[in-house]
C-alpha cells in the first residue's frame, strides 16, 4: 500500500482539467517516468509555478470542485505518482479521474466545501503538511503551529483498491 502525506500543494480553483494537469502533446510518452517534468504545465493560477519548489516538494494536492475533469488520460494520476503526489483532496472529482486514482492505488478524497475551506485556511503557512489515513478515513492538516483532523467518506470498493494496491491486482485475484 502507498503512503499518503507530506507537503501540501493548494490549487484554489474549481474544474482543474486533465489538459492542465498534463497537456495532450505529452501523451506520446511511453513510460510514466517520462511524464515527470510536465506536471501541471498548463495550469495558470496566481502565485502557482509548475516548476517551483512547492510543486516539487508536494505530496498531497488540495483543490476545489470537479477536479480532473476532461480526458480519460490516466497520465494525469501518473504524472502525480511519478512526482510522489499520491493523494488529492477536493470538494468533488470527475468520475474517470477519481477512478483512475483508486485504480492506481492512490487516493482521491472528497470532502464537503466547509471542510475544504478549513484545509485552505492552512494555505498561507509555508510549512503546511497533511497526513491522509485511508484506512482510518481521516485527513490531518498541520501548519503555523496548528493542527486539525477531519474525517471523510470513501466507498468500500475504492478503499479496497487502495489496500490492494490497485485494480489490476484486485481484479486479477478475483475475476
Amino acid at each position, binding site marked *: 500500500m502507498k503512503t499518503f502525506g507530506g507537503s501540501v500543494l493548494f490549487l484554489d480553483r474549481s*474544474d482543474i*482539467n486533465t*489538459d*492542465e494537469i498534463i*497537456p*495532450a*502533446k505529452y*501523451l*506520446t*510518452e*511511453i*513510460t*510514466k517516468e517520462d511524464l515527470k517534468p510536465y506536471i501541471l504545465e*498548463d495550469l*495558470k493560477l496566481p502565485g502557482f509555478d509548475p516548476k517551483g519548489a512547492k510543486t516539487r516538494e508536494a505530496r498531497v494536492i488540495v483543490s476545489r*470542485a*470537479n477536479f480532473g*475533469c*476532461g*480526458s*480519460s*488520460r*490516466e497520465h494525469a*494520476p501518473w504524472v502525480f505518482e511519478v512526482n510522489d503526489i499520491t493523494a488529492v483532496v477536493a470538494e*468533488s*472529482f*470527475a*468520475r*474517470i*479521474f477519481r*477512478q*483512475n486514482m483508486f*485504480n*492506481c492505488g492512490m487516493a482521491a478524497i472528497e470532502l464537503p466545501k466547509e471542510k475544504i475551506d478549513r484545509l485552505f485556511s492552512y494555505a498561507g503557512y509555508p510549512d503546511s503538511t497533511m497526513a491522509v489515513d485511508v484506512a482510518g478515513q481521516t485527513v490531518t492538516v498541520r501548519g503555523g503551529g496548528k493542527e486539525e483532523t477531519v474525517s471523510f467518506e470513501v*466507498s*468500500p*470498493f475504492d478503499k*479496497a483498491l487502495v489496500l490492494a494496491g*490497485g*485494480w*489490476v491486482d484486485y*481484479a*486479477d485475484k*478475483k*475475476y
Partner: protein
Amino acid sequence: MGKTIAEKIFATHLVDEPFAGTHVLKLDVVLCHEITTPIAIADLMARGKDRVFDTTRIKAVIDHVTPSKDTKTATQAKILRDWARRHAIKDFFDVGHNGVCHALFPEKGFIRPGYTVIMGDSHTCTHGAFGAFAAGVGTTDLEVGILKGVCAFREPKTIRFNLHGTLPKGVYAKDVILFLIGQVGVNGATDRVMEFRGPVVEAMTMESRMTLCNMAIEAGGTSGICMPDQVTVDYLWPFIQNDYPSMDAALAEFRKWWSDDDAVYDKVLDFDLSTLEPIVTHGYKPDQVKTITEMAGTPVDQVYLGSCTNGRLEDLRIAAGILKGKTIAPTVRAILSPATPKIYQEALHEGLIDIFMEAGFCVTNPTCGACLGMSNGVLAEGEVCASTTNRNFMGRMGKGGMVHLMSPATSAATAIEGKMADPRKYL
C-alpha cells in the same frame, strides 16, 4: 418498480457486486486506440499476462496521430499494431483503413443496443446513441477490460432529459448538447447517465444522436443514452440482418431495452427546444455558452471541421450546403478532417470535397489530430479557432490558443466571414 435502460443493461451484465453500490459488469466490447492502450499492453507484458479475454470483442484503431508524425507516435502505433497481430485481433484498423474511433466503430456496426462498451477515451459516451451503456475509462480499467472482460461501475443513476418541440432551421444536435451543458454545468451530470428522450431525439438521425451523446462527458456524464428505435434498426440493419427474421423483429427486441414508464430517475429535466438558437462557447469550459447572435463578429484565425463530435457525412453535407459556390475569408484558414475513410470517400463521390476545396479548405486524412493539439492544425499562442470539436479547455488545440465550440453549420458560416457568423442567413 420499473428500470431505466441503464439499469436493465447493468442487471443483464452483472458479474459481481463486491460491495453495495459497486457493480462489476461483463463487457460486450472493449475499444482501443494508440494513445491509452500501449501502456496497458506494456503493463500486461511486465506482469507476464499478455493475454486478451476475447479477440472478437476487442476492437483497435490508430487514430489520434495518424499517419505517425514522429518516432514517439510511430512507436505507439507499432506497440498497438504488434499487439493486435500477436493476438490475431481481426478488427484492427491501421493506416488506410483508420478513422476517428467514435465514428469508425459505430460505422462498422460494432455497437448494438444493450451493449456494455468501454474505451480508454472520455468520448466513449458517444456509443450510447445506440442504446448501449458506453463509458470512457482510464488505462487501468482498460487493462483489466482487455484481460478479464469486466469493469466496475457505481449505481447507474440517471438524469432524464426530455427534449420537446422541433429544432428550428439552422439548429442541430451540437447546439442542443452545448445548450444542455450550459444548463446543467460541467459537473451537472457527474456519476450520472444522461438519458436523452422526447420528439427532438426521435427526429434525429443516428449521426445526430452520436453528436448529442458524444458530449455527455463535458457535463461529467458517465454515458449518454438514447432509446433504440426504428432509426437505430435502419442504421444497424446491414450488420444484423442475419440475426433477426425481420426489421420489425429487431425493433421488438430493441424495444425491450427501453426505460420502463415507471422507472425511477435521479432527476427529470424538460426543455422545449422550438426556439433554440445556434450556440457557441465563449470561455475555456464547455458550459460557457452564448447564442450566435451574442457572439457574431468575433474574429477567428482558424476553422476546424471534424472530430468524433462532428466529422460525419451529415456534418459535411450541412457545411458544404453553406459553402457551395463561396470562398472562405482571406484572413482565415479552414481545415476539414472527415472522420473515417468511408465518410471521406462518400464525400468525394457526392462532390462535397470539391465544394470544400473550391472554398479554400485544406482537407486532411481522418484523425483526431488537431482537436487535442497533437497534429494537423495546432494553434499558435493567442490564436482563435472556431471548431466543431468537443473541448474548449485553455490550450486544448495548442498552448495559448482559444477554441470556440460550435456546429458544422456555424463553423461554415464563420469560415466564409472570417468571424463568427449566424448560419441561418445562408440556409
